[in-house]
């Protein structure tokens, strides 16, 4: 593996290896909670919390864990942080906890987290693992933010709950329903691939 600088470790999560648009990981929460911007942000932050701490911890104890039981250990560690995030949201942000519903506990099986643990944190020192996790989290939050902004503005005529389009606008209900998530995500992926191909041609 060629040596990479810290900024490369971080930036690859935003674009080159963006978890949503490139690696296509974590689709389930992405599609499900991106119907409103506030849900997207909350989900992004909860996932970031779990990703950063579990990457750090796994990288820290990677030498102690026997290879045969590594996945089980990773999942226990990830599940611990997810439960902390879930309880924290339920205790201090009950409305958000309610609207995210079962998708907070489901972060346990979010492939981004286990994927980074297996592909990066288990092979790299803690410092780099945290930077990698920060980059991936930023990429995930960015993707959720774009997706949920489009869906909320078109589907409800609001942004973060504030009306941004006048009363003339008839909300496209389909955008806040599951099909709207698939359509928007597909279009965004096509755009991001198009940009990537154009930049490679140069």
């Amino acid at each position, binding site marked *: 593996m060629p040596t990479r600088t810290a900024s490369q470790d971080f930036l690859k999560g935003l674009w080159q290896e963006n978890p949503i648009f490139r690696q296509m990981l974590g689709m389930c929460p992405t599609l499900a909670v991106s*119907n409103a911007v506030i849900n997207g942000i909350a989900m992004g932050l909860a996932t970031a919390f779990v990703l950063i701490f579990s990457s750090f911890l796994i990288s820290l104890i990677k030498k*102690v*864990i*026997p290879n*045969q*039981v590594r996945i*089980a*250990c990773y999942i*226990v*560690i990830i*599940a*611990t942080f997810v*439960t*902390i995030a879930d*309880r*924290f949201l*339920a*205790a*201090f942000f*009950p409305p958000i906890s*309610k609207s995210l*519903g079962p998708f907070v506990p489901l972060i346990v099986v979010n492939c981004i987290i286990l994927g980074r643990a297996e592909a990066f944190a288990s092979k790299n020192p803690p410092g780099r693992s945290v930077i990698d996790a920060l980059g991936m989290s930023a990429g995930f939050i960015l993707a959720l933010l774009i997706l949920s902004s489009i869906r909320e503005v078109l*589907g*409800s005529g609001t942004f973060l709950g504030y009306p941004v389009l006048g009363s003339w606008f008839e*909300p496209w*209900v389909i955008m*806040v*329903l599951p099909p709207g998530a698939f359509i928007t995500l597909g279009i965004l992926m096509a755009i991001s691939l198009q940009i990537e191909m154009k930049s490679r041609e140069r």
Partner: protein
Amino acid sequence: MSLSSRMIIVLTSVGLISGGFLAGVGILTKDRIALNKKMEIERAIVSVVPGSVSGETLYEEKDFTVYGAKNEAGDLQGFALYTSGVGFQDKISLMVGVDASLLRLNSIAVLDQKETPGLGAKITDPTSFLVFWENKDFTQPLSLRKPPAATAESLSASEVNTITGATISSEAVLGIVNAAREKLKALREEGKLAPGGTDAD
């Protein structure tokens, strides 16, 4: 140390440390979560019974609770029924506010629902749905007006509006409220609504 004993030791210790940690987090957040839930119920009671500031549990069974809503002096202002039933996709939980004589329905509030966003989820919308549930005749079962009336005034005292495109959700709410009405009536005839007596048998 053999590999298998190392595997056992590592997995066990990871599990134990995580478990211990989570027990701590659970203890720290438990009270706060219970308080949130209580506050939510209390807020709903106060919102459906005008003039009330608190609620006292008068009768409780699974998915059905009657609260006596009281003002600051402790006088009964009306009853708030916590009740739930099956909606289009999942359970709908409501708080139904009734006056002390059980003749009028003050208003309803939605506590929990997972109806379709943009359609059935309109049951939480004050201006397009809940306003049509205010101040209704509670001496007979309510019925739905279909197609919906434009203003609350053009509905009769025992009629409520349907949401266009979400008849099932509208009917679900209606069914839940009417069922709660029957239960409340039966409870009063059995004399179980006297404030102070919390006979839940």
